[in-house]
């Protein structure tokens, strides 16, 4: 079980590579530029990993995307929740 951390936009090659690598038990955390996925409801990863994609709230807030994420009921985490997630997964891979 792996936690995948994506830092680039959903239309980036980093995102495409991550999508190839995500296994059925893995989870995904979107940070930095990746939180713009809140603006991309058609992103295939939403289908690929339903209920296992999280967004970092402070990165949403600083970009003015927190209310859009809330509207779409996307699961968000504080930095503390990010650490908690890494506690559960022995391995993390960052896609940047």
């Amino acid at each position, binding site marked *: 079980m792996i936690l995948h951390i994506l*830092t680039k936009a959903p239309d980036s090659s980093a995102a495409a590579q991550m999508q190839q690598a995500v296994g059925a038990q893995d989870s995904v955390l979107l*940070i930095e530029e990746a939180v713009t996925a809140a603006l991309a409801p058609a992103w295939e990863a939403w289908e690929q990993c339903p209920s296992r994609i999280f967004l970092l709230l402070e990165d949403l807030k600083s970009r003015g995307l927190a209310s859009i994420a809330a509207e779409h009921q996307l699961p968000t985490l504080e*930095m*503390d929740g990010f650490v*908690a997630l*890494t*506690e559960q997964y022995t391995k*993390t891979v960052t896609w940047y």
Partner: protein
Amino acid sequence: MMQYGLLVMGAPYSSPAPHSALRFAHAVLARGHQLAGVFFYHDGVHNASSLMAPPQDELNMHDAWAELHQQHAVPLDVCIAAALRRGLMNESEAQRHGKQAYNLSPPFELTGLGQLLELQQRADRLITFA
């Protein structure tokens, strides 16, 4: 309680990675874990520059890492090969290369890549920020 290692590969002001890494580091400690070390590689070596002088209303990332070291004794290791290419050197490297100045000093330490692999082995978790 777990041991965490961080790998930082982005430069301050050019990449958000150092900011994310620093916030993560404080959250790791706040949850009662230990930080076994931070390794700076690729453009991340610029975090160690003692000459950075951002505007006063911006965070000085060098000072923020140094503070993390002071408060929690976190080792701050910088890949020597990546650093020398990019214009980061400590006093002894400056002497070796015949330079008049240096811009890297403790708590940042120049070290080899082996240190990164050792950190990955030793830590329960290695998180990359890039």
